[in-house]
């Protein structure tokens, strides 16, 4: 499912090109929940931020963070695209704060390479980053193949893969690992 966030915001009579403040985030989240009511199990939801210039930390906290948390319980995946450089920084900052203060981490996969030169936003390790890059290029791979590419010791690699699956930035299908 592809959700054009600007279109959704326009339907909700939000002023564009910026999506800012908590009330706006809460309102947009409730609109998204309506859209997601028909989503299939394991489906990937692409949030397209085209024509959105700034999303601030309050909006991110009320909208994106909540959707990522929902994704785990409702079993779907989130991917973002057309994130502006400033929004990327704001998302990264929120995810970093979240990871410092909560027991878990947050990350989101993105369709295009960001200003951070990564295909994701969030506080991942270098090894985790390498795995995502490899899967992005090759779409899917087995553990031996990833191990050869990353040069990681098997135990460490297994843990990294499990962590990435838990973060819902990769998935496991038929014994292989697949990019979202």
């Amino acid at each position: 499912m592809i959700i054009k966030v600007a279109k959704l915001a326009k339907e909700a009579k939000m002023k564009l090109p910026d999506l800012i403040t908590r009330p706006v985030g809460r309102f947009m989240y409730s609109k998204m929940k309506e859209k997601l009511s028909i989503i299939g199990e394991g489906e990937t939801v692409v949030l397209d931020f085209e024509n959105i210039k700034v999303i601030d930390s309050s909006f991110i906290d009320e909208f994106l963070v909540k959707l990522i948390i929902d994704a785990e319980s409702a079993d779907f995946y989130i991917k973002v695209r057309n994130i502006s450089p400033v929004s990327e920084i704001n998302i990264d900052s929120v995810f970093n704060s979240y990871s410092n203060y909560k027991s878990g981490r947050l990350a989101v996969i993105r369709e295009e390479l960001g200003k951070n030169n990564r295909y994701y936003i969030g506080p991942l390790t270098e090894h985790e980053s390498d795995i995502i890059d490899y899967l992005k290029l090759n779409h899917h791979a087995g553990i031996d193949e990833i191990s050869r590419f990353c040069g990681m010791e098997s135990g460490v690699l297994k843990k990294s893969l499990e962590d990435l699956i838990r973060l819902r930035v990769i998935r496991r299908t038929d014994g292989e690992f697949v990019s979202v």
Partner: protein
Amino acid sequence: MSGSDRTLIMPDRFRDPYIFENIVAMNDAVLNSAGVIDMSRVAFIEPYSMLSFLLMGRNYLRKSGERIRLVNIPLQINQYLTRMDFLSRGVFNVSETIPDSMVLKRSISSSRLLEIVEIPNKERQSVNVIASVIALFRKRAHGILKFWMNEEVVDYFVTVISELCQNIFEHSMDSGFLAMQTYKSGNENIARLVISDSGVGIRKSFEQKSEITYSTGAELIEKALTTPISSKREFGYGLCQVNAITERLKGSVFIRSDSSSLTALYNRKEKSGKNIFLRNDLPQFDGTQISISLSS
């Protein structure tokens, strides 16, 4: 006081947030004055000083029920205060009005500023005001940020305006004011965004958060600026994000709350590597006043 001992004379100390401390030191004198202020010595006013002075006037109005009367305002100061909508806030009375022909025009060429806007302390109204301020800022950004212009800088400032305005209705328990202007000081061009309130202040807003420890007010301001702490939630992002953006833009941050202040200078570094400077034991001034500046 003037010869009649009823008129308070304001010295020419409205040039930047640091010099304005001289005026803050007169806060009690203003609050206990007869409500007449002579502005004849004032030659220049920048946005931070203007908004703090507006808060002083509002505090007087709330205390006495009367507006302060400003007298002997130099023409260029009167023009500026009129242009910035300072005199139409309903806080001050003026004895001299300027003729229509002398009022500064509101043309595109004089739009390197955002006039004073009141940010309400109620979430719903505030959200609408913030959206309008940001829309106006985007319209005028090419003028305001002329010397720093690229689209990313505009987006950075949208984030900063949004975060700081939200702090007013989330934390201050009072309405506040915003203004922005690019002006020349010597050879330097300065873009200054100011957001100020006379609410509870940073220290009081963290009163219920016993896990956040600090020894001075300035140290708490530094924590709020450099770590994602929040007085309302488990953690927060606002000020921290503002700090990160200002650092990226090589600008400066000045925050004053109650009797403490913090200055973060990202445009230059001391030899020691220090760029954050704290001050305590300043004269008490309620609320939080924040200035974000770029210079070129």
